[in-house]
């Protein structure tokens, strides 16, 4: 949505409660900015997320680009400009080199240091554009919300920008906007995040702002009320967006009994008071749990010194958060959310899968690509291309610290709800029972290798990858060894994953649409629990 000037709250760096938990849906009004990977295996090049057109992933197509002239026309104009000499200079440098024959990726040098107060600093020079990207992660995140106060951490990270010891909310907003680019905060289940994307000449001002909002916020009571009202409006309108409803219900059902399954409701949002905000601030924002990644058009030594100057004298106060308990398996759930006015059914199929550090991760990238990634996957081929049942269908594994999900998502007109379910389950059963072909296996290898390199072109993507590696404890040579690891996955490994996760009988099903017109199609598909859409997030 490059062309539309949204004055609503700027997207948080991690589109909270959107990606990662097995629901590749982006709630309306929020834009998923790639930030780390939250463990989700992403097959889709950024372009598919941005533009509409042929988009396959339902969530993305739903949000991003009704292929109207408005956004795209604007795109043409607003992204055009004069190039500076920097572009040329940058082109002479070999930034990211993929040696196709040797199948290796070389990143520019990365400098890793640790400040005396525990902050990890990871710095990479990137000279292709005169910009700087900073990503800060604090481990902890929304799972530390107090009981009955789900949403407190999300409110807290928004409130970081609404008042400090020296500046009011209005002054902070003015300072951020004047810099151009963005200075932002966010949170997900396991992380609080902050970051900036600016022209490199504004680095100092940007870092000053970041340090100030993270270290000296005041959480004014009036600002909490403003923020609460916005959050309530967002929860109140969830029922207007069937895709958002499906994602919300899926997360709660599939992570039932686990912190990942706690989602804010109108009631929990009403219950949060200023003491809760202060409590989650002290629990969540602390230098001993902090990693800073900076990628941009600077000298590494200089950037490290600047970060030392802004954050080096910050002393830790909080105790380390307890580890996240493992995600428990849940019984098969079948939920039909009744939205009487819908003319289309949103469909989600899901099961509990694995955590980010699982040995299943790499073989699953390949298996998932073959089943439901790109335009040539089995699901797209059968359900979209051969049967015209949908505009978008895709599968994904989301692998978080303590567990994850496997999810398929799609949508179809009401009348073909059962046809879509049967076609999808049929493809999955065949894949689970018969495995994949040699040709599919090789195509997926080539696809993932190429996409990995293409997606690492921007400083934002590089910073996200470095941040994600640090967060999940992946080795420092993860990028360099990605292709060999992928190649090391043998065809039987892929088939083992297919058998384990694609077998349709263990899948939970979430449907959102008019129950009166869908129920009759569900004979023999198991007992569905019907819920009114108006109850979601109450």
């Amino acid at each position, binding site marked *: 949505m490059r062309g*539309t*000037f*949204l*004055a*609503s709250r700027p997207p948080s760096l991690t589109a909270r409660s959107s990606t990662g938990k097995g629901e590749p849906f982006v709630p*309306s*009004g929020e834009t998923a900015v790639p930030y780390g990977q939250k463990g989700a295996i992403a097959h*889709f090049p950024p372009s598919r997320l941005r*533009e509409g057109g*042929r988009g396959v992933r*339902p969530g993305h*197509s*739903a949000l991003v680009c*009704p*292929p*109207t*002239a*408005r956004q795209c*026309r*604007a795109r*043409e*104009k*607003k*992204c*055009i400009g*004069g*190039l*500076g000499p920097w*572009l040329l200079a940058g082109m002479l440098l*070999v930034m*990211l*080199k993929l040696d196709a024959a040797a199948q290796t990726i070389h990143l520019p040098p990365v400098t890793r240091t640790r400040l005396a107060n525990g902050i990890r600093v990871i710095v990479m020079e990137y000279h292709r*554009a005169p*910009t700087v990207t900073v990503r800060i992660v604090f481990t902890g995140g929304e799972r530390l919300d107090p009981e009955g106060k789900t949403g407190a951490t999300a409110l807290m990270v928004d409130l970081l920008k609404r008042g400090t010891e020296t500046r009011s909310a*209005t002054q902070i*907003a003015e300072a951020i906007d004047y810099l*151009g680019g963005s200075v932002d905060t966010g949170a997900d289940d396991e992380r609080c995040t902050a970051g900036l994307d600016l022209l490199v000449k504004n680095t100092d001002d940007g870092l000053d702002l970041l340090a100030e909002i993270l270290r000296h916020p005041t959480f004014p009571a009036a600002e909490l009320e403003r923020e609460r*009202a916005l959050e309530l*409006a967002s929860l*109140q*309108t969830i*029922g207007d*967006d069937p895709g958002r409803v499906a994602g919300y219900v899926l997360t709660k059902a599939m992570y039932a009994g686990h912190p990942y399954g706690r989602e804010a409701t109108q009631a929990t949002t009403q219950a949060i008071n200023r003491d809760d905000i202060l409590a989650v601030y002290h629990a969540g924002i602390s230098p001993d749990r902090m990693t800073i990644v900076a990628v941009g058009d600077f000298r590494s030594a200089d950037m490290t010194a600047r970060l030392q100057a802004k954050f080096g004298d910050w002393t830790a106060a909080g105790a380390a958060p307890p580890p996240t308990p493992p995600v428990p398996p849940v019984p098969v759930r079948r939920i039909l959310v009744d939205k*009487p*006015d*819908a*003319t289309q059914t949103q469909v989600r199929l899901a099961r509990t899968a694995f955590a980010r550090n699982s040995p299943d991760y790499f073989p699953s990238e390949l298996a998932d690509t073959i089943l439901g990634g*790109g335009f*040539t996957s089995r699901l797209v081929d059968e359900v*979209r291309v051969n049967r*015209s049942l949908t*505009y*978008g269908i895709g599968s994904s594994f989301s692998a978080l610290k303590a567990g994850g999900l496997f999810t398929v998502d799609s*949508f179809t007109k009401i009348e073909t709800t059962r046809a879509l379910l049967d076609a999808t389950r049929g493809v999955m059963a065949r894949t689970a029972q018969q495995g994949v072909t040699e040709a599919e296996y090789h*195509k997926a290898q080539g*696809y993932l290798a*190429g*996409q990995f390199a*293409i997606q690492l*072109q921007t400083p934002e993507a590089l910073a996200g990858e470095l941040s994600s590696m640090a967060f999940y404890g992946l080795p420092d040579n993860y990028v360099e060894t990605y292709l060999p690891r992928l190649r090391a996955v043998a065809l039987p490994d892929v088939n083992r994953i297919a058998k384990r996760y694609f077998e349709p009988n263990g899948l939970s099903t979430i449907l959102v649409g008019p129950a009166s017109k869908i129920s009759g199609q569900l004979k023999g598909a198991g007992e569905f629990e019907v819920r009114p859409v108006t109850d979601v997030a109450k």
Partner: protein
Amino acid sequence: MLAATAALGAQAQQKLDVSRLQLKNGLTILALEDHTVPTVAYYTVFKVGSRNERPGITGLSHLFEHMMFNGSAKYKPKVFDQEIEAGGGSSNAFTTSDSTEYNEEFSSGTLDIVLRMEADRMRALKLDRANIEQERGIVSEERRVNFDNSVEGSMTERLWNSAFVAHPYRWDTIGFMKDIQAIRLADAKAYFKTFYAPNNAVVAVVGDFHTADLFKRMAQYFSDIPRGPAPPPVVNAEPPQLGERRIEYHRPAELPAVRIGYKSISFKDPLDPALDVLSAILATGESSRLYHSLVYEKQIAASVSASNESRIDPGLFTFAAQAQGTHTAADCEQAIYAVLDDIKLKGVTEREVQKAKNGLRFGVISGYKTNEGRAGLLAENDAFWGDWKHIYTILPKYDRVTAAEVQQAARKIFNPLNRTVVTLVPEKEPQ
């Protein structure tokens, strides 16, 4: 600031090493080598969109975009995507009221087969009943998900439906459902012949290749595609509006909302850069005029946005707001007008103008980070302005915008007689 920026633009113009080749059949090819990453971005703009449609075939441009991926004389259906994805790449496309754009990015080793497939589909796309029926179903689902089942999408569609009475901008690029269902194969064939000729297209290739080699191959693969007749011009028969139009839209929804559109200008109008600056002052960031007033101060809206939607022919300058709490669409609407009236009366500050320019500059520069981003910019600028070098003029145009021009633009565009307003009336039950 101003002088420095102008110098930057001039300097860059000498340095960006784009080669341009026009084949005898009229196809324009732009090439920019960049060996940083071993990938190639291939980007095509066809100068056709929903503004070239007529009632009865609304949505054809976009339906056709889908049909472009389903096989051609030499390549069977599905082969296009299979070749590109096996080469580590991906492809996509989108359609607007003014253009249809295709993009691929893939490992450099895949370039030759992509060129062959692209030439073949421009020369001899497979247009048969199976192709059109397949995409008709898919596009119907696309319409349901993005418009019929989306409060935002359906409100936006209604705004344009109501603001225009004669110009094709009155229908959305997705087209009306019954037209999508009714478009015939003969319509698609005529459309291909008229609008997908090489003289109606610009291709930009950016990345890891050698220009001489690229031009040699493209001349070999594309030269025998026949030139087509010039597409018929679009008549802009839109009469002056001369009075506000108000539309109520009843549907199940939780909160009231409003869309406002003022008849505006073409993006070629000299006032256009000032409207981009104005749009940023109004609604980019939390310090913007509208956010600060409606969301922060008065707390009557949960969100508010503004957008300069100028097009080839005059488009709209639009606003959207969603109410919060017990506030109404009318509250939002009046608060927006108060902000606009203030700017018309008192103007904007120098600092606001500079702030807007800072954000625009960052956005412009960010567009160049990837091969695909650059390919899109080159192709679009050549297609719309006749010369890819137009990219050099954008930042200088922004930098020349003054506070006085912004006020003048506000006075010219925000005329209540040229206004269309769509108010969402939330209902409990489907209507």
